C-alpha cells in the first residue's frame, strides 16, 4: 500500500507542487497520471482515514488538524492600515495542515458558481473603490470541470430550482434530509421560498470503490474516518501515488521559491521534518498552498530580480482577500432534532443568491439550516447557548440539557467584495514556529457586504420563526475577523497590470510558475468555494499538461 517512490531533491522533477489540498491534490493526480514526475510538498503530516477521531477537545478546541493554535502560527490581524496588527489566540486564517489540506476537514457543502458569478461586473456595472471585476473565463468554460469534480471526486445532490445548467446529472442522490432540513423546508414553504437539497462532497452511497457516509456527524473541522468525505486525501492522492510518478512529501515547510538568472523558478526551498533546509529542483512549480499561504510564500520569495515578491509586478499578490461573510440565527424547536447526527446541512435556500439592485447594495447569499454549535457539546456550551440564560448553575444546566438536541442554526453565507485594503501581507515582527514571517491579515468588510449580512440575517430570522421556533436569537452582524475561505489573493485575469495569473493559471511574470487555489478566484461567490477551487484545478491541469507537452513551459 505504501508508496515508496522517493525523488532525490537534486533530481529535477517535472513539477514541484506546493500544497496537497483541494487544488494541489487534484493537480498531483492529473499531472502524475499524465506521465510527469511530481513531488508534492505538504507542510502537514500524512494522516490517513484511520487517524481521524471524534475528539472535540483535540480537533476543534486544540486545532490538531490546523497544526495547533496561534502560538505556533503567530498570525496577526488588523481591520485597516491605521491599526497595529495584534495576535489573537485563534489564528485569523484557518486551514488544515495535513495531506489533503482543508479538503480533509471542511464541511463539504459543495455549490457550483452560477453563470452570473463570472460576469457580475458587466451585468451590474462598476462599484467605486473596489476591484470588482469579471472573470476571464465563463461558467460554460468551467462547466465540464464541475462535472468532472462531480464524478471523479464524488458529489451527492439533486437539482434545485435556481441551479446553473449541468451537462450530466449528479452521480448519486443527496444525503438524507435531517430535521433541520425539514424545518427549513417548512419555513421556506410558508414564506414562498424554495428549499432544495444541499449538494455535498460526501458519498451518499458507494462510489469509485469508496464506502458511503455513515452519518457520524463529524464533518465540520474533522477528518472522515470512513473515507466518505471526498477530500483529495480520499480521492486523488491515492491515484497520484499509484501512478508511480508522484511522491507526497509531508512535513515539508516551504520557505521560498528560487528563481534563476533568466527569471524562471528553478527550485523550492523547504524545511524537512527535522528542520533541515532542503531544496527540490523542478522544471516548473505549481503553487496551491491556499489563498493565505500562496500569497505569503510569493511575498517571502522576494529576491533581487523580484524585490516585491514573485509574480507580483501588478502588486496584486495578497490583495483582494475575500472570506465570504456570515450571518444567522439560532433557534430551538419543540421536539428533538438530534441534528448532531449526519452531515451539517441537508437543505438550503438560494432565493437570495443574486444581487437585487432595488435593495440598494451589491451582494447575495445562500441560506442553510444546520446544527452548527449543537453539533458537539463543548461548542454548544461555549458559543451556542441562549444569551438570556445564565452561563452557569442550575438554569444553565437545565437549558443545555433541553436545548442541545432541539437547537439548530439558520446561517447565511454571503458575497465579499474584492478590495485593495483587504489583504495578506508579511507581519514585520511576528514569526511562525519555523521562523517564517507570520501571516498578517488586514480586513474590513465593505459596507455592501455588511448590508448583505443584515439583509440575510432578517431572512434567516423569518425562516426560523416560520418553521415554528419556540425561541430564536440572532447571531448579530459583526465585522469579519478572519475565516476559512481564503479567496482572491492571486486573482486570475487577462491584464497583467491587475491580476497575478492568466486565465490558465500561469503567472504573468514567471512562465514556469503556476498558481491555482482559492487565490485564483476573482469574485467570492456566495460561500462554499471548494467545488470551484477543485474545478479550477482540473481545468488548470489540462492547460498545464497541454503546455508541457507542447514544450511551452
Amino acid at each position: 500500500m505504501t508508496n515508496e517512490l522517493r525523488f532525490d531533491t537534486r533530481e529535477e522533477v517535472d513539477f514541484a507542487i506546493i500544497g496537497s489540498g483541494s487544488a494541489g491534490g487534484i493537480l498531483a493526480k492529473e499531472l502524475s497520471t499524465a506521465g510527469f514526475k511530481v513531488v508534492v510538498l505538504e507542510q502537514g503530516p500524512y494522516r490517513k482515514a484511520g487517524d481521524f477521531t471524534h475528539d472535540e477537545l483535540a480537533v476543534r478546541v486544540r486545532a490538531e488538524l490546523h497544526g495547533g493554535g496561534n502560538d505556533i502560527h503567530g498570525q496577526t490581524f488588523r481591520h485597516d492600515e491605521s491599526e497595529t496588527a495584534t495576535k489573537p489566540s485563534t489564528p485569523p486564517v484557518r486551514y488544515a495542515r495535513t495531506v489533503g489540506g482543508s479538503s480533509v476537514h471542511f464541511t463539504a457543502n459543495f455549490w457550483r458558481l452560477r453563470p452570473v458569478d463570472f460576469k457580475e461586473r458587466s451585468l451590474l456595472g462598476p462599484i467605486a473603490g473596489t476591484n470588482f471585476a469579471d472573470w476571464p473565463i465563463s461558467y460554460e468554460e468551467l462547466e465540464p470541470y464541475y462535472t468532472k469534480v462531480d464524478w471523479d471526486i464524488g458529489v451527492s445532490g439533486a437539482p434545485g430550482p435556481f441551479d446553473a445548467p449541468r451537462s450530466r446529472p449528479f452521480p448519486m442522490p443527496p444525503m438524507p434530509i435531517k430535521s433541520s432540513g425539514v424545518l427549513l423546508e417548512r419555513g421556506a414553504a410558508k414564506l414562498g421560498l424554495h428549499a432544495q437539497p444541499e449538494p455535498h462532497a460526501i458519498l451518499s452511497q458507494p462510489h469509485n470503490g469508496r464506502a458511503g457516509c455513515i452519518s457520524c456527524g463529524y464533518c465540520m473541522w474533522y477528518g472522515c474516518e470512513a473515507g466518505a468525505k471526498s477530500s483529495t486525501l480520499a480521492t486523488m492522492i491515492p491515484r497520484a501515488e499509484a501512478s508511480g510518478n508522484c511522491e507526497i512529501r509531508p512535513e515539508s515547510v516551504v520557505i521560498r521559491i528560487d528563481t534563476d538568472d533568466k527569471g524562471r523558478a528553478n527550485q523550492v526551498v523547504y524545511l524537512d521534518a527535522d528542520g533541515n533546509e532542503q531544496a527540490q529542483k523542478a522544471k516548473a512549480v505549481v503553487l496551491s498552498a491556499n489563498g493565505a499561504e500562496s500569497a505569503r510564500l510569493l511575498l517571502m520569495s522576494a529576491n533581487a530580480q523580484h524585490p516585491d515578491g514573485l509574480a507580483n509586478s501588478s502588486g496584486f499578490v495578497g490583495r483582494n482577500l475575500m472570506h465570504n461573510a456570515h450571518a444567522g440565527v439560532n433557534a430551538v424547536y419543540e421536539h428533538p432534532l438530534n441534528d448532531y447526527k449526519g452531515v451539517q446541512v441537508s437543505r438550503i435556500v438560494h432565493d437570495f443568491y443574486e444581487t437585487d439592485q432595488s435593495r440598494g447594495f451589491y451582494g447575495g447569499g445562500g441560506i442553510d439550516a444546520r446544527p452548527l454549535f449543537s453539533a458537539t457539546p463543548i461548542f454548544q456550551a461555549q458559543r451556542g447557548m441562549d444569551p438570556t440564560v445564565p452561563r452557569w448553575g442550575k438554569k444553565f444546566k437545565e437549558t443545555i440539557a433541553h436545548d442541545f438536541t432541539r437547537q439548530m442554526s439558520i446561517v447565511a453565507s454571503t458575497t465579499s467584495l474584492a478590495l485593495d485594503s483587504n489583504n495578506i501581507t508579511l507581519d514585520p515582527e511576528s514569526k511562525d514556529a519555523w521562523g517564517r514571517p507570520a501571516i498578517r491579515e488586514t480586513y474590513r468588510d465593505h459596507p455592501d457586504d455588511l448590508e448583505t449580512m443584515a439583509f440575510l440575517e432578517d431572512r434567516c430570522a423569518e425562516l426560523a420563526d416560520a418553521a415554528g421556533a419556540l425561541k430564536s436569537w440572532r447571531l448579530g452582524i459583526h465585522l469579519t475577523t478572519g475565516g476559512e475561505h481564503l479567496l482572491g489573493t492571486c486573482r486570475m485575469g487577462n491584464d497583467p497590470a491587475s491580476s497575478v495569473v492568466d486565465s490558465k493559471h500561469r503567472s504573468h511574470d514567471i512562465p514556469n510558475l503556476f498558481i491555482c487555489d482559492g487565490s485564483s478566484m476573482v469574485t467570492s461567490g456566495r460561500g462554499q468555494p471548494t467545488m470551484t477551487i477543485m474545478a479550477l484545478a482540473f481545468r488548470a491541469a489540462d492547460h498545464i499538461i497541454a503546455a508541457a507537452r507542447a514544450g511551452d513551459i
Partner: protein
Amino acid sequence: MEDRKIRSRRRFLQSTGSLTGAAYLRLLGPGLIAVTEAACTAKQAESPFKVLGRDEAGDLAAIAARIIPTTDTPGAAEAGVIHFFDNAFATEMSGQLDGARAGLAEFNAALAAAHPGGGRFADLSEDEQDAFLRSQESGTLFGLAWTMTMFGFFSMEKYGGNKDHIGWELIGFEGHHGGWQYPFGYYDAELHGETNRDK
C-alpha cells in the same frame, strides 16, 4: 492496526443496510441515566492527584460543582471533572497551572474577606457559594475554571472527566456511538412517516 480498523469499519458499513426500526428506537434516546451511586464522589476524594494539592483540588471541584451543579441529574462532581483539571494541568495545560494557582490565591483571599472564618469555599452553603462565585466572575480564576469545567464535563472520558458519559447523557448526545441511520430526529422521522403513508 490501521488496516484492521478500516476492515472492521467496512464490516460495520455492510451490516447497516436496514436499521430503520432500531434507528428509530435510538432516536428516542436512552434518556438520562439515573445515577444514584455516591461511589464516584467517594472515589474522587481518595484519588491521588497528579499535580493538584488536596486543597486546590477541593476548591476547584467545589467551583466546578456550582458551574454544573448536581440536581435531580448528576453534575460536574459525579462526572469527575476535577480529574480532567488534574490531568490537563499535568499535560497540555501545564503552562496554565501557575496562573490557576495565582487565581486560586486571589479567589481565597477574596473569600476570606467576604466570609471571615468561614473556611474554604466548599464549606459555604450552596447559596453562599453561588453568591460568592457571582462576585468572582470577572476574576482571574473564573473564566479558566468555567472553560475547564465544560471541557471536563463534555470531552472524551479519556481526558479524565465525563465519567460514564455523564455529560453527554445529560444533554442527549450519543457521541460515542459512531454512525447513524436516518431518521435522526423527530421532524425527519415525521416526514418519513408521512412519505411512507403516501406510498
